[in-house]
């Protein structure tokens, strides 16, 4: 498996369904008693979906805890989180001492001794004298509550050194970039997949298939080429950043500037993801178009549009969601580089800055936040699966629960 995710159409949908229950007992030849409970459909569905969602949230929560714990362990193997905590304590203590007039009057040796004593007290309070695994649990609790400590050097726009603030401040631009791009890609590939499946064998179809290998290049890579062409050579679009500097004071000007800056990064993401996903979607549509129930729909006299919508698109949605999930996840994890290349002031770029400055608290904090973002993405996808595929809700045969 690749770090970026392999976006192949995957095994035939039929092969994923086991045991469709051929043959049954003779007892069913007569009508079963009315004892089978026919619950009201809409309430029943809602109840099932809610139960499912609650269940998934629970599982996801546990998963997040374990994932963040692993992250903490990795970070603290070299004692770096301890370092962060120690530095924080020392800073707090010295600040407290400076603020307190009573301390200032003391002679320097006294002050030093008192400072050490206070530091030691606090260290014990925060569990820094506990064994490795236990300490990590304490850090885990903090990380989960997003109590991410203070940075070494980086500060937020408001001047605070709280890692949480720094990172959360940088979240909206990332969401803007990735959100816009991914929504665009989703609908584009959906539409393209449908359009291509109708024109099977056509030149455009083969063109898209031929361009599918472009997916091997990550978005930031195409970004470099795009900047080379459109910014350096043609000078049509800006090199990077989110808005012009200085930003236009009026709202429409600002929006326009924002849009101009969004074009290249979005295009980069699209180049990397569009062709292979359009190809995968089109293949799904073609495979599902060959299903027996589609022929039945034709036999029943349904219109082409309706057939496409209800009998091809709707059953295929889970597969489409799966391939889109891969796009989402890789875009999250690729954010640091994409934002770095385009100088986009988001979560990814602050991570890059932290690398350069070796600002460990920020790096660790960013990893935790990325984990949360991924968990959220997975949760949303699970919910969508439940809405779209009744087999997931009701637990049909052979369907595995949960999004990839």
């Amino acid at each position, binding site marked *: 498996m690749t770090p970026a995710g392999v976006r192949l159409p995957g095994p035939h949908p039929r092969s994923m369904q086991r045991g469709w229950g051929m043959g049954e007992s003779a007892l069913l030849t007569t009508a079963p008693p009315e004892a089978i409970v026919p619950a009201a459909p809409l309430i029943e569905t809602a109840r099932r979906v809610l139960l499912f969602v609650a269940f998934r949230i629970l599982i996801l929560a546990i998963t997040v805890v374990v994932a963040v714990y692993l992250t903490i362990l990795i970070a603290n193997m070299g004692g770096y989180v301890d370092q962060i905590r120690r530095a924080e304590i020392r800073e707090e203590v010295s600040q407290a001492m400076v603020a307190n007039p009573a301390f200032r009057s003391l002679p320097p040796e006294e002050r030093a001794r008192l400072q050490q004593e206070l530091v030691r007290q606090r260290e014990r309070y925060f569990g820094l004298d506990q064994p490795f695994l236990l300490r990590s649990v304490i850090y885990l609790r903090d990380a989960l509550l997003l109590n991410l400590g203070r940075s070494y050097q980086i500060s937020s726009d408001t001047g605070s050194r709280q890692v949480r603030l720094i990172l959360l401040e940088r979240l909206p631009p990332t969401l803007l970039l990735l959100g816009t791009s991914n929504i665009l890609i989703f609908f584009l590939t959906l539409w393209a997949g449908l359009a291509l499946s109708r024109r099977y064998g056509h030149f455009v179809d083969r063109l898209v298939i031929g361009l599918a290998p472009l997916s091997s290049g990550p978005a930031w890579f195409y970004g470099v080429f795009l900047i080379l062409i459109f910014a350096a050579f043609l000078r049509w679009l800006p090199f990077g950043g989110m808005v012009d500097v200085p930003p236009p004071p009026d709202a429409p000007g600002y929006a326009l500037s924002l849009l101009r800056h969004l074009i290249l990064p979005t295009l980069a993401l699209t180049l990397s993801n569009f062709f292979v996903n359009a190809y995968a979607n089109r293949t799904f549509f073609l495979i599902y178009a060959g299903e027996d129930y589609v022929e039945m729909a034709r036999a029943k006299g349904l219109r082409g549009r309706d057939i496409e919508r209800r009998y091809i698109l709707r059953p295929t949605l889970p597969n489409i969601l799966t391939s889109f999930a891969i796009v989402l996840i890789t875009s999250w994890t690729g954010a640091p580089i994409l934002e770095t290349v385009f100088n986009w002031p988001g979560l990814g770029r602050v991570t890059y800055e932290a*690398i350069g400055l070796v600002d460990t608290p920020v790096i660790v904090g960013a990893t935790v936040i990325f984990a949360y973002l991924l968990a959220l993405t997975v949760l949303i996808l699970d919910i969508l699966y439940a809405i779209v595929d009744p087999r997931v809700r009701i637990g049909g045969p052979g369907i595995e629960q949960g999004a990839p």
Partner: protein
Amino acid sequence: MRRWLRDLLKELRYYPSALLGGSIILIMLVLSVLVPIWIPYPEAVRLWRGGEEVWYRLPRQVPPAWVNWFRREKLAGTLIFSTRDQPSLKRSQPAGEGRRIETEFVFDYPYDTFPQELVLYIWARFREKAPFLTATWKTPDGRSLRIMELRAEGMKQGFRFAQDRRLLQRLQGVPPEEALFSVPEATPPRVLKGTYRLRVEAVTFEPDSDVDVEFVAYGQVYGWAGTDRYRRDLGVALLWGFPVAMAFGLLGSVGTTLIAMWLAAVGVWFRGWVDELIQRLVEIFSIIPFLPVLILVGTLYSRSLVVILGVAIILSVFSITIKNYRAIFLQIRELPYIEAAQAYGAGSGRIILRYLLPRVLPLVIPNLVIGVPSFVFLEASLAVLGLGDPVLPTWGKVLDEAIFSGSLLQGSYYWVLEPALLLMVAGLSFSTVGFALDRVFNPRLREI
């Protein structure tokens, strides 16, 4: 087995892009084997990290020499002459206590532009009495000019034409790079093409005193790949990028695929809690953010490619593909002919070989091939973030330096394009082959 391979190749004929990709892969693999032989690792490190000592002869940030094919106005090439490389250029005669050493550099200057810089490097060996050197410049049209007179200082020194006040005075303020090569009285200045001579005469005053000189006319192009900001020949890094990329890519992809397959098989074989555990791990790892954790490891612990590769493999193994492999293994487990095979006494090895492998290969092989570019680009990604391997020269490192030294703004497009195009070619070649293999192994995809 051999027939299977032949059938496979016959099928691939229908995919010309894959054939092209395949041949490129072969070329890359061959290069990956040849390059470490041709430029051994210590030599590569020396060339790439050697410092001024190694790089001083090359012009700073210039494009490759072959751009001249596309230009009407030919950019100046770099000319290097050294008595250290060619001792025969030196002629030495005894003179008094020491020797009189004459060196003459004769060269053609066919370019349309002036050189970037002119430097005469001098290595002098002496104990107390420093040698004395003079240099004379002769143009094709017979003009002659004394350009340098000095006493050697220390072991090595560089006489930069453009910085010598006396020479500047003699040339009436015109930069020597221009003045020494231009047609007299021409406005705008035009290059005088023809054969030039630079004669250096050194007089030593001690019996074992010796002098070596090196003349470098820094051009605006160099070599087949150009140079970077530090005067390094990019060709070294680009060549060494091949084995690094191939090794990283192949090891990463093959390692991940094999381990993932093995894990899926183990889960299906042992069922119960082992299977559950593996599935839970897959879910957990899907939440662990891949790149940020690699960043964590790279920043805090080690940037060595070996370590990064290991961590990357571990993180990639527990991914969705295990579920795909598991689905296939589950199908196989249910198959009656497995039981039948066991019943007639087939050993596990035989079962695996004859029944398991053929069913799982259609999924494994395309995955494996398509996975290679992911790892290749991963190395580049980390390099661009500043977390590249500290020692090895790789494409990613070159790209990183290219992007962040503002080469795009300065118009040194070649610096970015060369590693980028190599990355692209490497990535595309594997992925075209992979996609074609996918269609070959899954014929139903072909009907569609």
